[in-house]
């Protein structure tokens, strides 16, 4: 097991290196110039050239890459072109809102989607099943920002129950923190609920005709126990896989949701950095997201051993 984990961690290195090369080249090949953006609309060519020189953007791409990679491996992501702050500091400041949103979204999604999927499987073919599946299709099809605007209009503008936008740090009080997370988390969880509910339904349906389910029923166990202890437990592997893979969806969703709800998290930082062509920040954030994705997949693989004793590494 430990060898497997170590092997997977080592395999992460070339993956991250590829990501680094890809991100770096993509940014340099994009027709844009951070120096021109920094200089502002009234600046002349000399002012832009001076800034380009200051930022080291006048050097050959290979040199720029070598400098950046050399610093990155030591944990130094450099200084943001725009914010006059270390990129690491910027990212550290944005982690809490994004983690809060992701955590809350996952909580809502799992709490809603798994029971819905189980019930839909149990009532296979009935109206509840069709409703859940209909919602699932809708959840996949409607863009995150449309759901966001709808929820804002109803709950914030019309009913005035919740704030329109913004984020309050946990240390400033759990009430405000929760208040500001409800709408964005609900928005983001819709697509996630659709995905998990659908997979849960399919997985549970598959095991519902297995012998051990029949045996459990023959032993006189209640339907609830049959569903949870026997059906759901045996259907858990694909569900956990989808939750893990869905983190990619979550990362994409966070970018949109944080922008709509003005949450100063990593998603918003990514958008701001891309719009401003803030190379050091974009590179660091994408590396971070990639690393998170790789590690979550590792965690999911490890979770299989707990969910299914037959799986061994």
């Amino acid at each position, binding site marked *: 097991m430990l060898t497997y984990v170590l092997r997977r961690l080592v395999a992460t290195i070339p993956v991250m290196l590829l990501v680094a090369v890809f991100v770096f080249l993509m940014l340099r090949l*994009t*027709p*844009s*110039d951070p120096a*021109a*953006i*920094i*200089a*502002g*609309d*009234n*600046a*002349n*060519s*000399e*002012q*832009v050239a*001076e*800034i380009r020189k*200051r930022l080291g953007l006048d050097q050959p791409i290979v040199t720029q890459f070598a400098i950046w990679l050399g610093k990155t491996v030591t944990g130094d992501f450099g200084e943001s072109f*725009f*914010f*006059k*702050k270390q990129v690491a500091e*910027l990212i550290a*400041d*944005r982690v809490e809102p994004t983690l809060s949103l992701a955590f809350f979204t996952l909580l809502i999604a799992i709490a809603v989607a798994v029971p819905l999927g189980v019930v839909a499987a149990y009532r296979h073919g009935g109206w509840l099943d069709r409703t859940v599946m209909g919602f699932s299709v809708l959840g996949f099809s409607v863009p995150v920002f449309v759901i966001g*605007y709808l929820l*804002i*209009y109803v709950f*914030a*503008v019309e009913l*005035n129950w919740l*704030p*329109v*936008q*913004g*984020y*309050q740090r946990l240390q*400033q*009080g*759990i*009430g*405000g923190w*929760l*208040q500001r997370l409800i709408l964005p988390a609900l928005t983001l969880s819709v697509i996630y609920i659709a995905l998990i509910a659908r997979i849960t339904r399919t997985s549970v349906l598959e095991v519902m005709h297995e012998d051990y389910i029949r045996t459990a029923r023959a032993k006189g166990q209640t339907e609830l126990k049959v569903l949870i202890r026997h059906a759901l437990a045996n259907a858990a592997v694909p569900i956990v896989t989808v939750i893990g893979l869905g983190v990619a969806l979550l990362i994409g969703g966070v970018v949109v949701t944080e*922008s*709509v*709800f*003005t949450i*100063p998290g990593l998603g*918003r*930082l990514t*958008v*701001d950095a891309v*719009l*401003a*062509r803030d190379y050091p920040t974009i590179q660091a954030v994408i590396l971070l997201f990639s690393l998170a994705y790789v590690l979550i997949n590792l965690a999911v693989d490890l979770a299989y051993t707990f969910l299914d004793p037959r799986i061994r590494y």
Partner: protein
Amino acid sequence: MGHLRRSLFALAAAAALSGLSTTADAQKTLRAVMHSDLKILDPIWTTAYIVRNHGYMIYDTLFATDENGEIKPQMVGQYEVSADKLTHTFSLRDGLQWHDGTPVTAEDCVASIKRWAAKDTTGQKLMSFVDKLTVRDAKTFVMELKAPTGLVLLGLGKPSSNVPFMMPKRVAETDPNTQLSDFTGSGPFVFKRDEWKPGDKTVYVKFDKYKPRSEPASGLAGGKVANVDRVEWRAISDHQQAINALLAGEIDFIEAPPHDLLPLAIGDSNVKQFDWNVLGNQFTFRPNWTAKPFDNPKVRQALLYAFNQKDFLEAVVGDPKYYKVCNSYFPCGTPLFSEKGFEGKLNSDFKKAQELLKEAGYDGTPIVLMHSTDLQILTNLAPVAKSLMEKAGFKVDMQSMDWQTLVARRAKKDPPTAGGWHAFLTSWVSIDITNPIFTGFMNAACDKAMFGWPCDPELEKLRDDFARESDPGKQKAIADQVQVRAAEVVTHIPLGQWYQPAVMRNNVDGMLKAPVPVFWNISMK
């Protein structure tokens, strides 16, 4: 179960209390959404308007432009000019101090002028006239000129980017090409760097020791009295969300809501609009003189005949309340406004345009027109230009891109077929184009000019004449000549004036009419 109920009750109470505390804060805190997030903090290092606005919060200026466009002393108490107009003596007002409590000195001001002049084009022009800039005593400094110029007040009272903001000597001695890291100013608000979260909010608090002038506030001049304790610039990039937040009372002020969302905002009885920038803005078409066929003045002239301002203004702004046809380089409502040079032009006279193209021998080379798609106020300009140009006989290759890509591309002198460009459209804040020196697009110094690189020694000579002149009447006469020449060689094309009102909650009062949105004098009921 009882424990769970108690926990939920505590949670609900905490949520309610947090809501109450927000309401209490709102009594003294002005929460504003500006046109952009503040990412850079040095107003000399960049010309970006949001950084200029930040500068006005925390720094003060020696002179300032009032509501009528006149330049008035601000930090300066006494200003004397010798009879030969070569020696200008400036004495600071009593009681001025920096946010760290130390007094503002003449040494600080001299260092600040030098840093500003190293970056700003007006400053550079002014310094070309300066022989010596010396400190006489703690509160007095002297500017000795090689030749008289009208640029002394025009430069030191320059209202827009780059503004000559005064900074402590230790700060102003920072290399002009290096961003500042110390944000000590002497303006009416103090920048709270510890609370600055780019992408979230920027915070300023009232500077209690600021000594305002005794005159009432007018434009950027007069007494800068801070009536709110704290100003927060909230970074809400989504316009619809900013309006929603305003309607819900979560913010108090939006600097630049899109015109199509204005009815939604002012349809609410708790919200009002206010046009703070009475001079408005000007849409502009910029041809690239280095790219064929725009190296030919007749082809550029054809554009002037093909265009008309109303089509552009209707397509972008729509509501005539918010626009004005103004056939002048210098905006309507400013002292140098004139229609000279535009007689018979900007009327979509396609026949005349076609004749000019024929005379020029235009061979049908496709015109690469850069179309910015992400800034709402610019999006519809290029399609209108394309349509009018095609009617005049141009072949147009309109290429869509985001503004930042356009910004990078316009700096390239490559041929249009190899990543260069022929033309693009933009918008200027009127205060930046009120005279031939401020107007960046009138700079016709070839390679040293702004992108588009007009090259016309005669126009440059006229601009120099303007810089040398200090008599307003004579300046006006020269400005007319500049305009006639610029319209003849077509450095750029003015496409109409438009206005951008702010919207705010009814409890926000006292906003000043000024070319820059400033937060002194504003009170909250």
